[in-house]
């Protein structure tokens, strides 16, 4: 696994919604370049808040979030878009645009941030083959299975070659077999040097891969181990 310097850092970060609800409190976290990290915890534990803070969708009530040593909340509003290009995002519900073909969905992400048509024509087939969907380029999302759709979404997330991939429950809507395919692609991407942060509920996957695990409970980190399973507690299921 490739490891570089610190890419993401949370320093005493607390987020309080509407002055009363504390979503995350006193988070301290360092993520190195090239890491693969599972963020685990029950619903409402603060996983989504963590991700939103990282995407600068919300700002922390206290503390600092840095990306490559830059306080991301000091980024000017008009530069937020440029900042987000460092991060590829994968959603639980894929979020493909239904009126575009697979090819167009991926090309869309490139078009959004400039790229010449020539580059688009070269790059899109490459990513498509990486996720194993070369033959489905002309399909529409609703003609694909869930796993295939998620693979398109992954292709879209990596097409602009981001340093970091954030995946929010990417296997949440998929069965075990399909989840494995998705995980295979994500670990492959990680092997090429991309930092991957994946929020998940999936005990089996986390136990199988034995990566760094950060466990959240009631908004606080209760466990951060470099290599391990979903939980220290014995398996219940």
């Amino acid at each position, binding site marked *: 696994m490739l490891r570089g310097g610190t890419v993401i850092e949370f320093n005493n970060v607390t987020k309080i919604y509407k002055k009363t609800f504390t979503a995350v409190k006193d988070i301290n976290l360092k993520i190195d370049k090239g890491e693969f990290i599972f963020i685990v915890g029950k619903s409402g534990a603060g996983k989504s808040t963590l991700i939103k803070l990282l995407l600068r969708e919300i700002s922390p009530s206290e503390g600092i979030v840095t990306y490559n040593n830059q306080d991301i909340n000091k980024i000017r509003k008009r530069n937020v878009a440029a900042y987000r*290009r460092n*991060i590829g995002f994968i959603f639980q519900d894929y979020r493909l645009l239904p009126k575009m073909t697979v090819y167009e969905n991926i090309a869309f992400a490139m078009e959004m941030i400039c790229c010449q048509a020539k580059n688009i024509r070269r790059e899109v087939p490459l990513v498509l083959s990486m996720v194993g969907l070369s033959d489905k380029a002309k399909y529409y999302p609703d003609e694909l299975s869930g796993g295939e759709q998620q693979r398109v979404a992954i292709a879209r997330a990596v097409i602009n070659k981001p340093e970091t991939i954030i995946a929010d429950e990417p296997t949440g809507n998929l069965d075990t077999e399909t989840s494995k395919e998705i995980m295979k692609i994500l670990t492959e991407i990680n092997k090429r040097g991309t930092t991957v942060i994946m929020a998940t509920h999936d005990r089996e996957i986390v136990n199988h891969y034995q990566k760094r695990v950060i466990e959240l409970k009631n908004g606080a980190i209760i466990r951060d181990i470099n290599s391990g399973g979903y939980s220290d507690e014995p398996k219940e299921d």
Partner: protein
Amino acid sequence: MNPKKISYIFRQAFKSMWRNRMMGFASIGSVTAVLVILGFILVIVLNVNNMAMVAKETFDQIAVYVLEGVEDEQIVELGKSFRKIDGVMGVAYQTKDYALEKVREDWGDDAYLLRDLRNNPFPNTYVVQLSDVSKADEVIAKLETFEGVEKVRYYQDAVNSLIKISDFVKRLGIAVILILLLISIFIISNTIKITVLNRQREIELMQYIGATNGYVRGPFMIEGIMLGLMGSCVAILIIMLGYNYSIDYLAGRYIALISGMSGYLVGIEMVINDLIIIFMTIGIGIGILGSLVSLKKFLSI
């Protein structure tokens, strides 16, 4: 802004218009509907206004009939005195022969009916031009005091009521147009809002991918402008055809009325330029406004 970005924004706008064509039709439809109603009211107001103007011009004259047998010298004197009255702009003299000749001309082919006329029944007439229609009463009162004046004719009641009606129609028309404009902005911004709402995900996604606000907003604005423009073009076409048709229809039905009123109706070619400018402006304005207003909410992620 570089050309590449502009071409991207335009391409994107056209693509997304095609992908969302049903909503597009709805937007165009609502723009068209509102503008057509607006246009018809505008046309009516313009016509009534024109009618009043023409009528004013025609009727700001007072005809003063001179008694039979008044000497020429005295007639000249009368003219001079008329000219001195306050509120009179000018005076023109028409001999009885001229009056008869004019009728003959006006009647054209039917003029043979006048063949058997033995005496010229028309009086010598002074046409007194008013400088201000509101002074008509005073002028008439003075004119009637002169010796040798047989009768003073003036279509005052007609003019007054016409002016009243036209003022009323104008006010009503402007009020209705204002209300309609508000309604149309509301309807169209709602339509665009639905379009945007439909594409909330797309907009969210753009922001997650890292598209700048310009990239997100650009295509929507172009789309709004295009939809507004298309709506106004359709509206202009409908108004043009409809207006021509109704004039033709009226002409076919009521030839007499039309030939008598031809001066009062405004031809389409007089209105169409203003109409095109007004409609295009409204269409584009509504398009930009609608897309900006409805996008604002979503550009905050």
